[in-house]
């Protein structure tokens, strides 16, 4: 089973295996190129030696023999290097969390807890809306109360005006003066009756 080393890829931006493959291919190319250069120099040298009995295919065989040997060691050494680099350098230890993921451990919310959090938000929003609606109703009632109070005060004002009129015309305490008025009108009626009887 291949370890995709995805967490390392999240940090490095490439998979460690790709990095190692990149290095392997480049090193291998250099080894091959060098071998070709070595072979080229030898062939060129032999080409300049008159009556030389060594054929290019012989040199090629030597090259292949040396390269085969080098390649074996190269692969052995490279796999050791790869193992070490993947373990010590291009890896993220199990106990390490990348900065961008710190939030995951600061707030370990399960799905249920997160859902509960979302529900609470919904509920708070509804409560806020309810409060706003309540405020509007209360404000409306306060407006209404203003009007009603104004009306009631007008009525009270009428009573005050009435009493002021009475006072202006000498009737300080309305009740007494009303009683007085009743009495004096009663007297007047008596006097009137009296006069009528006398006049008969």
């Amino acid at each position, binding site marked *: 089973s291949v370890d995709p080393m*995805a967490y390392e*890829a*999240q940090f490095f*931006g490439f*998979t460690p*295996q*790709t990095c190692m493959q990149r290095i392997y291919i480049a090193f291998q190319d250099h080894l091959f190129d060098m071998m070709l250069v070595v072979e080229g120099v030898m062939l060129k040298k032999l080409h300049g030696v008159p009556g030389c009995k060594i054929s290019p295919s012989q040199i090629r065989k030597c090259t292949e023999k040396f390269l085969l040997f080098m390649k074996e060691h190269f692969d052995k050494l490279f796999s050791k290097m790869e193992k070490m680099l993947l373990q010590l350098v291009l890896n993220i230890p199990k106990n390490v969390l990348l900065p*961008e993921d710190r*939030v995951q451990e600061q707030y370990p919310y399960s799905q249920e807890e997160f859902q509960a959090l979302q529900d609470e938000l919904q509920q708070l929003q509804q409560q806020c809306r309810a409060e706003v609606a309540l405020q509007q109703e209360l404000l409306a009632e306060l407006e209404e109360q203003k009007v009603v109070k104004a009306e009631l005060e007008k009525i009270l004002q009428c009573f005050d005006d009435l009493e002021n009129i009475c006072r202006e015309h000498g009737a300080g305490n309305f009740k007494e003066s009303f009683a007085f008025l009743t009495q004096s009108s009663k007297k007047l009626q008596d006097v009137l009756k009296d006069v009528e009887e006398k006049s008969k």
Partner: protein
Amino acid sequence: FDELIVETATRRKRWPKKILVHAVQTMKAEQE
């Protein structure tokens, strides 16, 4: 496979922040 891993890892690194930006915008809009 390698590209898939890098693509997935890159998204894991970048997208939560991007999504967060939109989520915060949504929440601010809801607040308003």
